[in-house]
């Protein structure tokens, strides 16, 4: 034991994590390395498998072969896949797309099949079949069929409408045209006729019909600009460039018709930004990458025409591969509801079984001796009991509500329309919005606007950007800098430091000009001229802000070609050769450009995150410390920083590097890794120029929203990739942190967790996880605490750390059985430790009022969400705007996408999306809360009304020999759920509000009912059931008492079955409709209309069905002729109905009144507060807020 612990401790006490660095790239966590197989897999196997993976042939993934202008090539037998039996189909899809599900013939069978896959529908199908068996059929065939048809019909209509829309869409797209080479010349062809290998020509503003290889275009170097809005939502232009060779030789039509290039590339996949392939032409091979591929869905811009060769068509294209199945999220209430339906189902079976036994007993005692019951069959009493079991399953089937699922769908749809009408968002997890416990928020673009403005900079150790005049004196108020001397200034930048301009003009410090030159040259911004004005299109707002700033300070980026870049330097235009662009990506966190000046010097300019730049600086680089101080100052002002640096490169050094670069860029496997390695070689020994500071303002209403949400007991965790200081300052800015908050950092937590683990171990070790959990707080008092933790600490704390040692261990084979066992054991122990530790961490973090995780990777964001989801069992919501938030958005119960500056990826994977963070308070506190309350009330009422309705049969059984006799007319059973009791509850589910939106926002504390599941849980469910059961008893036994001996007003037919059924049914309809009236807290005329309408409808339909006319037409189907008019003529029956309804409802009123008086709920208190305490000003302010929202 001792030695084990030692090894663990050393393992744990590796070097302290570094707060500054983002831990590592997402692909290399230990988890992924470990989790490739089951945890207890023998090491030997893993080693073998890893070796196998290493040995795989390098070109294995290049199996997609395309030949230009040769359709027959793709129809060769070895490209055929067997579909069913012997029908073969080419593996190359053609370009017609099919998103629809049904056609005219398949709609009915397929749609029905899909619908019957749902358990509820299938259950009713089974019932229908049971009903068709004459021995056990206790209800008329239409009683189940009719509601089922209504339910199926509604769903089928919805599917039909959706599918017709898809058909239209598909048709429209498949019949678009473009020019394709056929028989030696370009011919206009429909999209659906395009095939792999075809050469096509596209004009400006055309949609691209398939994934094509760009061969040539009208622009120099065969550049081609595309807009990718449909793929990723980014509206800035991107350029694609053809190969040199195709650019040279494939400009003309006759050259294109004879083009016979052969392409080998990877199989179709969904990665939009990756492509590897090789073109074989004229006995040479050329590397192909994503830069040469035009993807379907993009639009050609600023390019007159271009030629391309189709590589992937139709369903193989990347956009189609991306439109995968959407994940189906279900709400907590869905799960709860399902369990309740199962519970009811079990109750149904038990009740039926009990009654069946009763029937068998009754048959033996009475039925067998009753000559009048003789039915010609000599069944034993127990067999009759068995038959009656099924009979009761049929008549009591309404306990399991058939229309529940459809009604829930309808209500969700309606609620999402309401939310959409208010906030322009649509989806169907609405009631879950009322139960949120934890919000995980991205920072940039979510809390902040993601509109970047250049605020400050540090050049050569000197900070610029404060309010200063030209002679370095600080003023609190000073005019913004006048940029009118600069013909390229866009007039949008407000800068207050006149001294910087002075410096630029004087040119005393060469670094100042160098600094802005770097900003103008080192970027991937595209430029076009609109009316002579420069217009920049940047991929990220940071970059746009920097290039614009350089432009305003006199270093305007004017134009770019493939190999050159033109800059106006304080009025003089100079063109630089671009030798290489070393791209930005999220791992590298920097970009560099290598240019040759007109004088012939080669220079590398680099900008990037401070952490990665500082690692690569030359040892002698000046002003390191000053710049670091400046960076800290910027960070504390919540500014975003980038470091700039450069380096001179010798011609020879460049030549050498260029060779490696070329080799790496045509590598066909692992090209990215190879390139990264080559980049790394040249990006070293850099000389620091300075740092930029960009401001990203908080969005409107963020602090208010956060404090509202905090009052609603929603915990907000900010997860950001920013630096600790920046994150902390944002925390203060948005009032997540306040002056009296005690902030805990990684170290503190680690210590706390360590002690806790020790304690737990002493108490029984990690194996004691089955012991009852101990709830002891980590912090002594309830003072306001916040947690700020960096990604590296997070890994440290959660033992997610990548350990080199374990990697080495892996390569060793376990020699003996003993060793192997030891290893699995220690692994299992590690797992348990990890779990314990994670749980402790989550417990600790949840004690804090705010948690900020900075320097976290997208994967860690998702991991944090998952931890809380797993250990707290709470409903989580993740909100973010960028691609780096997608993981977390998908992990959380509810994902919210902010449609901001960073494209649509977050929005696409989210459940809700809107434009600003502050809408969240309205979404959660108003709509979420309403939806939750409505759904809960709806469900409670639904179970109540079905129990009240169905169990009357049960009570009646005791008086009819358990013979499965119904207590109502068949038609009443048929229509009860569909017509007589559905509309009011649907409307309540759509319209009810216990307090208005304004009050919901003003009293966020009202929100907690949802978090605590107060309104719908097993207790409430059983209360509803008991209420239903009691109601059914009253509904049966009061009429029973009244009918025991009675005689009609004129002595006639005193106590017949049909009058009895009508009496109970009328009392039931009035009771349940009045009950929903009592449950409705927001009575609009629509509610009133529906409640009284339902009752009126019941009487109307009943009198029709009992009329002479319908009896003459269908004497067997309508057997209650005359019952309504004869029974309801009697005051005695009305008095019975009134008494029944009163006894059902008055106790409810009394209990509600008493509980409201004795234990008023928060929302009960609200309206009185409104009347007494709310000052008028608050009202006005609120309505203004509403107006601004709307």
């Amino acid at each position, binding site marked *: 034991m001792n030695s084990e612990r030692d090894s663990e401790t050393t393992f744990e006490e590796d070097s302290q994590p570094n707060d500054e660095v983002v831990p590592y790239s997402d692909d290399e966590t230990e988890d992924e390395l470990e989790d490739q197989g089951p945890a207890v897999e023998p090491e030997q196997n893993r080693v073998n498998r890893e070796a196998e993976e290493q040995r795989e042939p390098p070109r294995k993934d290049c199996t997609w072969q395309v030949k230009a202008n040769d359709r027959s090539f793709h129809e060769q037998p070895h490209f055929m896949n067997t579909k069913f039996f012997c029908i073969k189909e080419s593996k190359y899809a053609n370009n017609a797309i099919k998103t629809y599900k049904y056609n005219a013939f398949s709609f009915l069978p397929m749609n029905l099949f899909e619908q019957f896959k749902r358990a509820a529908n299938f259950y009713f199908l089974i019932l229908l079949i049971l009903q068709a068996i004459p021995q056990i059929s206790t209800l008329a065939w239409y009683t189940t069929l009719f509601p089922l048809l209504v339910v199926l019909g509604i769903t089928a209509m919805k599917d039909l409408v959706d599918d017709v829309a898809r058909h239209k869409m598909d048709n429209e797209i498949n019949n678009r045209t473009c020019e394709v080479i056929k028989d030696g010349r370009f011919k206009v062809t429909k999209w659906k006729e395009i095939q792999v290998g075809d050469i096509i020509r596209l004009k400006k503003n055309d949609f691209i019909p398939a994934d094509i290889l760009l061969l040539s275009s009208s622009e120099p170097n065969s550049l081609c600009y595309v807009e990718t809005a449909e793929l990723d939502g980014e509206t800035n232009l991107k350029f694609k460039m053809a190969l040199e060779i195709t650019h040279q030789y494939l400009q003309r039509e006759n050259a294109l018709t004879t083009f016979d290039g052969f392409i080998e590339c990877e199989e179709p996949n969904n990665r939009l930004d990756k492509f590897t392939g090789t073109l074989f032409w004229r006995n040479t091979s050329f590397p192909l990458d994503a830069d040469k591929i035009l993807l379907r869905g993009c639009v050609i811009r600023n390019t007159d025409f271009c030629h391309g060769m189709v590589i992937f068509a139709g369903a193989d294209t990347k956009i189609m591969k991306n439109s995968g199945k959407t994940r189906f999220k279900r709400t907590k209430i869905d799960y709860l509801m399902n369990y309740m339906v199962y519970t009811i189902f079990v109750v149904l079976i038990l009740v039926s079984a009990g009654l069946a036994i009763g029937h068998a007993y009754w048959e033996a005692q009475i039925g067998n001796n009753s000559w009048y019951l003789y039915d010609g069959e000599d069944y034993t009493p127990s067999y009759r009991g068995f038959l009656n079991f099924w009979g009761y399953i049929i008549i009591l089937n309404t306990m399991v509500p058939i229309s529940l699922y459809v009604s829930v769908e309808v209500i969700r749809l309606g609620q999402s329309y309401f939310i959409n009408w208010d906030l322009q968002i649509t989806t169907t997890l609405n009631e879950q919005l009322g139960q949120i416990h934890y919000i995980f928020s991205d920072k940039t673009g979510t809390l902040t606007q993601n509109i970047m403005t250049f605020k400050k900079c540090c050049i050569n150790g000197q900070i610029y950007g404060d309010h200063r005049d030209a002679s370095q004196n600080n003023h609190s108020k000073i005019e913004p800098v006048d940029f009118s001397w600069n013909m390229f200034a866009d007039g949008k930048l407000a800068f207050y430091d006149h001294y910087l301009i002075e410096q630029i003009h004087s040119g005393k410090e060469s670094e100042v000009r160098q600094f802005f030159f770097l900003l103008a040259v080192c970027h991937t911004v595209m430029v076009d001229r609109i009316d002579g004005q420069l217009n920049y299109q940047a991929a990220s707002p940071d970059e746009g802000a920097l290039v614009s700033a350089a432009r305003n300070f006199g270093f305007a980026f004017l134009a770019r070609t493939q190999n050159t870049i033109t800059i106006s330097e304080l009025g003089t235009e100079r063109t630089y050769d671009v030798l290489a662009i070393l791209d930005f990506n999220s791992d590298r966190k920097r970009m560099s450009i290598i240019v040759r000046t007109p004088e012939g010097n080669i220079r590398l300019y680099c900008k990037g995150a401070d952490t990665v730049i500082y690692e690569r600086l030359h040892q002698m680089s000046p002003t390191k410390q000053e710049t670091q101080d400046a960076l800290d100052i910027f960070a504390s002002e919540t500014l975003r920083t980038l470091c700039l640096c450069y380096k001179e490169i010798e011609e020879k050094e460049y030549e050498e590097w260029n060779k490696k670069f070329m080799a790496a860029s045509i590598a066909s496997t692992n090209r990215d890794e190879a390139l990264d390695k080559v980049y790394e070689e040249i990006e070293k020994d850099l000389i620091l120029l300075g740092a930029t500071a960009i401001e990203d303002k908080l969005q409107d209403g963020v602090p208010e929203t956060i404090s509202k949400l905090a009052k609603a007991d929603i915990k907000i965790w900010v997860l950001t990739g920013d630096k600790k200081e920046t994150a902390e300052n944002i925390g203060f800015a948005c009032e997540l942190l306040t002056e009296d908050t005690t902030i805990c950092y990684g170290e503190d937590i680690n210590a706390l967790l360590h002690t806790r683990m020790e304690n737990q171990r002493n108490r029984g070790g990690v194996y004691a996880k089955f012991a009852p959990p101990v709830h002891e707080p980590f912090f002594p008092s309830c003072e306001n605490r916040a947690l700020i933790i960096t990604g590296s600490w997070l890994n440290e704390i959660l033992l997610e750390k990548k350990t080199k040692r374990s990697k080495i261990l892996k390569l060793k084979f376990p020699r003996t059985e003993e060793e192997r066992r030891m290893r699995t054991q220690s692994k299992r122990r590690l797992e348990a430790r990890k779990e314990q530790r994670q749980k402790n961490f989550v417990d600790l973090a949840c004690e804090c009022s705010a948690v900020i995780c900075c320097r976290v990777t997208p994967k860690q964001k998702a991991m944090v969400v998952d931890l809380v989801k797993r250990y707290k069992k709470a409903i989580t919501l993740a909100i973010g705007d960028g691609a780096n938030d997608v993981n977390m958005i998908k992990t959380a119960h509810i994902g919210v996408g902010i449609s901001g500056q960073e494209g649509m990826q977050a929005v696409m994977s989210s459940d809700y999306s809107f434009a600003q963070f502050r809408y969240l308070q309205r979404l959660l506190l108003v709509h979420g809360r309403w939806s939750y309350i409505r759904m809960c009330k709806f469900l409670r009422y639904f179970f109540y009304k079905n129990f009240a309705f169905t169990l009357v049969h049960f009570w009646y059984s005791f008086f009819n020999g358990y013979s499965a*006799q119904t207590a109502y007319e068949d038609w009443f059973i048929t229509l009860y759920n569909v017509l007589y009791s559905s509309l009011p509850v649907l409307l309540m589910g759509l319209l009810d509000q216990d307090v208005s939106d304004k009050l919901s926002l003003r009293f966020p504390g009202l929100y907690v009912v949802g978090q605590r599941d107060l309104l719908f849980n097993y207790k409430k469910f059983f209360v509803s059931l008991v209420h239903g059961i009691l109601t059914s008893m009253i509904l049966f036994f009061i009429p029973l008492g009244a009918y025991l001996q009675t005689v009609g007003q004129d002595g006639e037919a005193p106590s017949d079955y049909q009058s009895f059924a009508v009496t109970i049914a009328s009392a039931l309809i009035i009771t349940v409709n009045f009950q929903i009236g009592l449950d409705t807290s927001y009575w609009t005329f629509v509610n009133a209309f529906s409640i009284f309408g339902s009752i009126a409808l019941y009487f109307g339909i009943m009198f029709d069905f009992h009329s002479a006319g319908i009896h003459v037409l269908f004497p067997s189907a309508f057997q209650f002729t005359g019952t309504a008019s004869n029974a309801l003529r009697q005051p005695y029956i009305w008095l019975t109905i009134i008494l029944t309804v009163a006894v059902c409802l008055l106790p409810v009123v009394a209990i509600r009144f008493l509980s409201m008086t004795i234990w008023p709920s928060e929302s009960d208190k609200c309206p009185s507060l409104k009347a007494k305490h709310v000052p008028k000003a608050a009202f006005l302010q609120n309505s203004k807020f509403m107006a601004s929202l*709307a």
Partner: protein
Amino acid sequence: MTWSAAARGAHQPDNTAFTQQRLPAWQPLLSASIALPLFFCAGLAFIGLGLGLFYSSNGIKELEYDYTGTAGTGGCSACALADRGRAPPPPCSCAWHFSLAELFPGPVYLYYELTNFYQNNRRYSVSRDDAQLSGLPSALRHPANECAPYQRRASGLPIAPCGAIANSLFNDSFSLWHRRRAGGPYVEVPLDRTGIAWWTDCHVKFRNPPLVNGSLALAFHGTAPPPNWPRPVYALSPDPNNTGFVNQDFVVWMRTAALPTFRKLYARIRQGNYSAGLPRGSYVVNITYNYPVRAFGGRKLVVLSNISWMGGKNPFLGIAYLAVGSLCILVGFVMLVVYIRYQDQNDEDEDEE
């Protein structure tokens, strides 16, 4: 109601009260000013109704006689001994003697009551063919399957009326005799055997098939009566308007009872000297004892009763109303007390805030 006046973009939804969920509404709080008066008013009203119902019910006179004939009860024991098995027992008659010391106010109704007779048993109550009973000639020849085993005779003749309900038609009959003075002659009290069923039943739901050559018997030609019936359906009564499917005894029987103990109207007494009621004197009810009930433990009663505005004698509803009304008042007081107590407390709480 706040109407936001902000300008809206083209794609934004209408700012209507409905879409913004601001429909004018009443929020019916169960406030004391509504709930307390409701309970007191309802309580008073229910007590009033309850008293009315209770006294009406108490004012109704009822006389009943169990003539099942279990050992030691009256004259029908002998007949009861013959009541064995399912086959129709031999005809037998017995009598019920009673005397009235004062006028039994009219109109007086004569009922028969059966107990432990499950007319509401599902198997029994579906065994009928409403199409046949509504006089459809096709259904007359082809009774519904539900009627089995009383659908067709062994000879293949369709049974009219088919089914177990019709087959088990109650066939005891009663006659009432009155003697004013001891030793005087018994005079038969006229029993009105028509108008004992619902009008809708006799005229809409139950119809004879169209006459053939003016004869009902011919209309029923080719059908057989139910096995238990001694006569065919068209011979149920000599009165041509009261025979066949519209025979009122038959119609009354076919309107099945809700509960295993039930009364069915046999006749009204409202003619001649008896329109005001049954005068004092001694009476005898002569019973033709046919119907077998002892096999299944049933009982047969004959009941004389008059009625009030609320129907026959049934104290349940009156008592229930009285109980519910009193409870309402009681609960009302409890609510009042609770309300006053907690109202003060809440006011204090709010003052403290």
